[in-house]
């Protein structure tokens, strides 16, 4: 029986900082690379060198513009499974192939049970499910379950591939169920939000919103403009105003 566990011991997940994501796709490709040989391998690519390539990706990076005109904001937006607390993808799955782990909350697919009915992908509002036409099974982000606990990796490497690759550190991994974890702290501090909370899926992953721009007078403490340098000593008197260079005449400077 795979109905969703009431509570999970941990709520492992990702926090993605939209304020600093530069949209480099490193997370997406690193994910593809790790997982191509990982728990859900392969991430099949159909027609890879042809007219209409179609690949399985667990993480995809969108680029949006928000707002209009010169004040619009370009926001890069990586999207992968949010490991929801109430994942309809699991509820709708007729076979039990989709499940949520009680120990850490990771939502996974057991490919050997999956019949490829695709219903879970219909049930997921976040587009996190990826059907592999070739294997006939549903695949998805595993939260790198085969990395984060992997004893064959050095301790520091036991984080999701996307997190370890992200060059700007826009991705964070941790236990969002523990209010004292660094990542929970970060979410509180930066007012991390849920995607489409109205769906009621209670995503574990959080997004940190873009912070306000600092592009107005006063934002850095500098005045709106520099004052012209004060006129020079009386010795130069009237000349100063006509020749601004004279202000540097009397500087005693040594090399």
């Amino acid at each position, binding site marked *: 029986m795979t109905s969703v566990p009431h509570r999970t011991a941990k709520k492992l997940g990702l926090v993605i900082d939209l304020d600093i994501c530069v949209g480099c796709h490193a997370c997406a490709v690193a994910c593809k690379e790790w997982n191509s040989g990982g728990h859900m391998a392969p991430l099949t690519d159909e027609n890879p060198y042809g007219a209409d390539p179609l690949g399985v990706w667990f993480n995809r990076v969108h680029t949006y513009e928000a707002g209009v*005109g010169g004040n619009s904001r*370009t926001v890069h937006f990586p999207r992968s499974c949010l490991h929801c607390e109430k994942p309809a993808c699991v509820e709708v799955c007729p076979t039990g192939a989709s499940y949520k782990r009680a120990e850490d909350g990771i939502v996974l697919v057991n490919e050997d049970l999956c019949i490829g009915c695709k219903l879970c992908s219909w049930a997921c509002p976040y587009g996190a499910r990826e059907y592999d036409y070739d294997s006939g099974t549903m695949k998805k982000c595993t939260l790198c379950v085969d990395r984060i606990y992997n004893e064959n990796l050095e301790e520091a490497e036991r984080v999701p591939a996307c997190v370890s690759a992200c060059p700007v550190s826009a991705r964070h991994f941790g236990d969002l169920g523990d209010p004292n974890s660094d990542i929970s702290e970060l979410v509180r501090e930066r007012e991390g939000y849920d995607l489409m909370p109205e769906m009621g899926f209670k995503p574990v992953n959080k997004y940190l919103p873009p912070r306000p721009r600092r592009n107005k007078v006063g934002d850095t403490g500098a005045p709106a403009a520099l004052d012209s340098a004060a006129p020079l000593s009386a010795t130069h008197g009237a000349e100063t105003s006509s020749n601004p260079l004279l202000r540097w005449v009397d500087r005693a400077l040594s090399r």
Partner: protein
Amino acid sequence: MGTMSGKGKYAIDTSPKVHDEVKHTTCYMCACRCGIKVHLQDGRIRYIEGNRDHPVNKGVLCAKGAAGIMNHYSPARLTKPLIRVGERGKGEFREVEWEEALAVIARWLGEVRQSDPRKLAFFTGRDQSQALTGWWAQQFGTPNYAAHGGLCAVNMAAAGFYTIGGSFWEFGEPDWERTRYFMMLGVAEDHHSNPIKIGLGKLKGRPPERDAKFVSVNPVKTGYSAIADEWLGIRPGTDGLFVLALIHELLRADKIDLPFLVRYSNAPWLIVQDPGGATDGLVARDDQGRPLCWDTATNKTASALSPEVKPAMVGQFKLPDGRRVAPVFHLMAARYLDPQYAPEEAEKQTGIPAETIRRIASEMAHAAFDQEIVIETPWVDWAGRRHDRFVGRPVSILAMRGIAAHSNGFHTCRAIHLLQILLGSIDTPGGFRYCAPYPKPVPPRQRPTGRTHEIVPGHAMPGPPLGFPSGPEQLLVEPDGRARRIDKAFSWEAPLAIHGLMHMVIANAWRGDPYPIDTLFLYMANMSWNSSMNTSGTMQMLTDWDGATGNYKIPHIIYSDAYYSEMVAYADVVLPDTTYLERHDCISLLDRPISDADGAADGIRQPVLKPDRDVRPFQDVLLDLGARLGLPGMVDEFGGPKYPGGYPDYIVNHERRPGIGLLAGWRGILGEHQGKGPVNPRQIEKYKQNQCFWRHELADNQKFYKHANRAYLEWATQMGFIDRPEQVVLNIYCEPLQRFRLAAEGHGPLQPPVALRQRVATYCDPLPIWYRPTVDEEIAPTSFPLHAITQRPMAMYHSWGSQNAWLRQIHNANRLFINRRTAQWLNIGDDDWVWVISHHGRIKAQARLMDGVNRNTVWTWNAVGKRAGAWNLAPDAPEVKRGFLLNHLIPELIADRNGGLLPNADPITGQAAWYDLRVRIEKALPEEAGETVPQFDPPNAPPNQAPAPSILRYGAHFRGRPGEDIPPAGPVTEPRS
């Protein structure tokens, strides 16, 4: 078997085995050169990850780096040497053995070398072994050598080397940890891809009490600009004026670091004011050649290099010989205080409101002077004076090709450096910081080689082809002023072309101007496609026939590539290279090292897999050819190859100067030396044991003010970076330029041809100037109202990325991005097809509207468009049908005022002016929609090219699932001794 977790049918292995072996090497999916760990399992690559210990990337990896597997196993890899059998450009080849290919080349080159070595033009593109390739050209005896810098960002390099003795590009970096104000101009990605991203992450993650502001000046708001605190959507080509307006403001308010200028720059140096005279504008010097200043203590001239003087910064003085002089600072301040540099004037050109320019200047001053950083580390300056602390002005700037790729880029970049100098933020905490081996003297002492007496058939040249001229006598020109190099570098057309003009080689060789050549030898440069201007024309030139000789206009073309790129079809002999995971490479301090501001570093690449094809590392091939040709330094006393072990042998055993070789780490028999030291036969082993890199962290007292820091300068001298531990004086005033200008004004024995005099006199201004891009002189800007530029997509490397099954899914078609309001005005909607028309040609593309782009600018991703038939892609691949290059619209030559033809380039450095492109846009007819123009007939595939797989299940193997198509598993290498 690993560790199981979960119950029953949900038990999973959370600790699967992920490698049999991990090999460290250096990434080459781009030129950033990050450290990587390649995990190998069953003789295949399980995955590649960033090396956390590596100084460049500190463990992170970019999209390209993570997709390395797919480049390594690309179906477009070349598999065997090829010799052309059909017409050029048709891709008709026969496979040959290496011996035959090398024998043919040796015969061609042998003849050239004995008759006129200049008839070999050897140009290397994205080359990371210029320490070898440049040296090879020198030994061959041809000056016609350069790498891709001239078409890339030589403006940045030249402006830096002639101003601060270091440069943006990868020769310096912002002090990411400490800066409080960071301005980025014209950067989409840069060579420092990962360090910049790591740096931005740090900068944006600062606690509020030390927060930093990030300003991006860029016509387009994507990538880094998207996360900037402030975006200034400048009109392309006008940054120079923007920066000079900032300078105007700082001078007006006297918000400059005068003590810094006095100590570290040539601001106090006296300049001769003798209009019309032969020494006008030159630095006044004493009889020992030392620059003079006006010492206010004695009211006399004194050596400006003396630590004791108290120089005047403004004023008019007289030399004992009666000539009038004024300090550099005086001339500089007088120029930029002029109202023509006021923010209001700048607003007219840049489109940035004067108010904003004023605010930015104010913010910079605030950060520099009110947020001064102090590091309590005592240090000693060049003159032996002790300082208790490093004082920093935490304003940092980074600029790249948005500045470089304009014909006014050299001066614009000089203006940026001037701004940095005025703020006192060169190599100070929080500012711009040099990366070893920089700073070097301004300009660096190496002169270009290639004058008449330096080229002797059958002999090496006495020096390297490229260098840093400091006056007319160091140009490579004939007495009548004509260029001596095929690309016309170091001629009056481009006196400071320190990286050559690769983009002019084919056009010049085709026209026989300045002379015809015999052999064009290219390495790693897709010159018939994305690295050429006038791509369609270039394709014709490569195949054009010379009726008189019955041969091609460019008789022989030799090319080394690892993949079936567009260029391969134009080669007569193709030398298939390995992939980056199959060879040794050297990332040398003699070339473009991987140092950072806190330490010097270099590295290697080591073979991680054995080639499964008949390919050879190009460096090995080059040394082999050198030995066959009997080139000095490549043969031993018996005439045999001096480096029978190929490139690794050379890396270890070659000494450029006594004690100085390609690698700085572990020199000496025991590996006890760094920098300079005897050859260590086990040096490469040491590198491999140390994850393929070497890094030496500077002592704390060496980390800042490197241009004037005795401890640093002495160390740099020991290391062989500089000859003497002398202060590197920052050059606000660029005297070499004035020497060229004087020649143009009719002084001295070597003068430019009459047609070029005005041009040289105008552009060789010793202080930064701003002018409209030169192409504007040829075209009527009103007919071509829009600027058209490209940006690098972060997930693609030029043309290579398209063969990569993963990366190409991200970018395989490109759009022309247009400002929404501009598009409305032109009646163009999202997804419409449009004609893009320049004065040189027209292309068709599909539009995408956006808000975050300058209203006068359209842009697209660079190098996404592909030629049908190349890269083993389907002929109807989106890259072909919906991808396009702007290059077809950019002419390599433009007419000057006198009707002469000049390179479409910066008049000082010869930098290709890609971003000067002006266009107009017309909506295509409905029946024209659907496909980009131009389209070209596909060349044949190389013989025995395996068809590209139609499905890829890479990695299935590791999970024990069947049905994998690739790879043909290559054996893991035994380390080569």
